[in-house]
């Protein structure tokens, strides 16, 4: 597979994975990342094996982008014992540190200080691994972000703050979540490098994230990346949509997968048939994923007391 097609392929896998999951009746409810695939994939392109990514509850795309096994991830989300956490974490809390995905934590803002702790271990351990923490525009209201930014800066922690500004926190638009003109102004207050990037453009994401990753990896302390993206579905699979059909239709035109497909077509890097084949590949892969997950049972009720202490 050519490098030029890799990001699109990864984004398509996330989309197919989440669509298949959403179609299941037995998924409980899920927080999907449709419209935000370029953020997860672009960022992951510049993270390395020894790095760790942490996220809020919207974790599926980022986990896949980091390389968590899709079958084990699906099993996790469907509550099966073959899941990365034996089906007990679910979307809000899954982790697979061996894949460089240290974990989701569904408390908005709550994972940011945790990520700084992981970064502290990286720093004291002496390797050159770094940590990235992905949080939303909504999380920019939470005090934990600021406390952690401050400490991470004072301590020169190898931590990249990545704000996935998908313009919404449940029903609350970005403007009502935070008074800062740009969310990266939060980083500016602590005098660290910041950038604002088009989070719908997977290559721009990789480029700008790469620059900040380099800063962080060089030991100069944290940096703050604001990614402007879109949430193209409702907050969760059971939440009410707050935007009109028309508005959503307009927004869908900016889908990062569409944009990247169009770019590749225009630049003659792929044909329509090639795109179709890629989509079919992803669909086939997800069929296997589903088969794997479905082959795995739910845990026994007796497991309820396992791993408490």
């Amino acid at each position, binding site marked *: 597979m050519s490098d030029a097609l890799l990001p699109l392929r990864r984004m398509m896998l996330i989309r197919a994975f989440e669509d298949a999951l959403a179609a299941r009746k037995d998924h*409980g*409810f899920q927080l999907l990342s449709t419209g935000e695939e370029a953020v997860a994939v672009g960022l992951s392109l510049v993270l390395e094996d020894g790095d760790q990514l942490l996220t809020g509850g919207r974790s599926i795309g980022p986990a896949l982008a980091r390389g968590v096994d899709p079958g084990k991830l699906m099993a996790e989300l469907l*509550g099966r014992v073959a899941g990365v956490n034996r*089906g*007990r*974490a*679910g979307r*809000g*809390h899954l982790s697979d540190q061996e894949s460089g995905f240290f974990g989701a*934590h*569904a*408390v*908005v*803002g*709550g994972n940011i200080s945790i990520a700084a702790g992981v970064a502290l271990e990286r720093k004291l351990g002496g390797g050159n691994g770094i940590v990235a923490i992905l949080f939303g525009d*909504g*999380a*920019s*209201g*939470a*005090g934990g972000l600021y406390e952690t930014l401050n400490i991470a800066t004072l301590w020169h922690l190898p931590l990249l703050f990545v704000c996935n500004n998908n313009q919404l*926190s*449940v*029903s*609350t638009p970005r403007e*009502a*979540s*935070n008074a800062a003109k740009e969310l990266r102004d939060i980083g500016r207050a602590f005098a660290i490098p910041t950038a604002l990037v088009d989070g719908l453009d997977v290559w721009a994401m990789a480029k700008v994230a790469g620059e900040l990753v380099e800063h962080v990896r060089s030991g100069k302390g944290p940096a703050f990346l604001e990614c402007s993206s879109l949430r193209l579905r409702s907050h969760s699979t059971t939440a*009410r949509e*707050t935007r009109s059909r028309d508005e959503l239709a307009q927004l869908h035109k900016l889908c990062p997968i569409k944009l990247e497909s169009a770019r590749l077509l225009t630049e003659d890097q792929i044909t329509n048939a090639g795109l179709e084949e890629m989509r079919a590949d992803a669909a086939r892969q997800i069929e296997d994923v589903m088969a794997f997950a479905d082959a795995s049972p*739910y*845990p*026994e*009720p*007796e*497991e*309820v*007391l396992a791993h*408490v202490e």
Partner: protein
Amino acid sequence: MSNDQFLTTRMFFREAVGRAVREEMEADDRVLVLGQDVGAFGGSYREFDGLFKIFGPERMRDTPVAEAAAVGIAAGAAAAGLRPLCVITYMDFLMIGFDALINYAAKLRYKSGGRLSAPLVVKTTAGAQGQGVAHSQCIEAWLISVPGLKVVAPSTPEDAYGLMKSALRSDGPVVYIDHKRLFPAPGNVPVAETVIPFGKAAIRRRGVDLTIVAHSYMVRVALETAGLLEAEDLSCEVVDLRSLAPMDVNTLCRSVERTGRLLTLEEGQVTCGIGTEVATRIFERIGVRPWIRVGALPAPVSSNPVLEAACVPNADRVAQAARTLAAR
């Protein structure tokens, strides 16, 4: 007085909450609501449907995701003379607002020598419904140990309506607790405006062999259990605490004196739990009776459907405990 006072109307639990808030907002312009998604969205459980249209964004205030500041702002506004209803979507995140609630609001009257108080209501939801380890907890037992704090937890639309109204009129602070599974429950609510005073338990079902004391969603589990056990000729009385602090020890004592046995039931942990306090207060008053406490198993509540169901009490587990208790 008209016959209206005996008329009832059918509504969902979430509607009963909304009605109480609407009436109190109409009657007292110091009442306002603040929290995440309480405005145009109508509340995470649609419990404020329609209120934004009536009262607008000044009185139905969306906040950013900032529980600590939200509770603090509500507490300060209350101290300054407003009557805020602060909505914390999940009780797990009330912890984030504990400093303002517990270290400031609950102690304000005391520390000011009675010169200030914080008539603030925090409305939150407890309990498990597939949302996992950080969205399922029941920590009301911690709250009832805080001097100066009142805590209520309705199990029916009628009580949601009446207790919310009392809460908004109280000189608080009050924590009013919904349960996620109750919002879609229908029930009869008086047509006439009524309030339910704090500190009054309700006997939901009469029985002679043992008393089950529960609150919130677990009252329904208790009633289901009582239904099951009827077939076995075991007659359970079911008492709904409704108000946890203050607690209606009188009603509890009378029931346990009649039945001679106590089963306490809660969705939270039994360790230092509500049930243990209920039993202690009853037995301090009337002497010891056979007692079993039932609650969540000592584990976090997973979003996994099998593990969640295994962790929190259900009618089968309660029935099992009741049979053991009856045999004592």
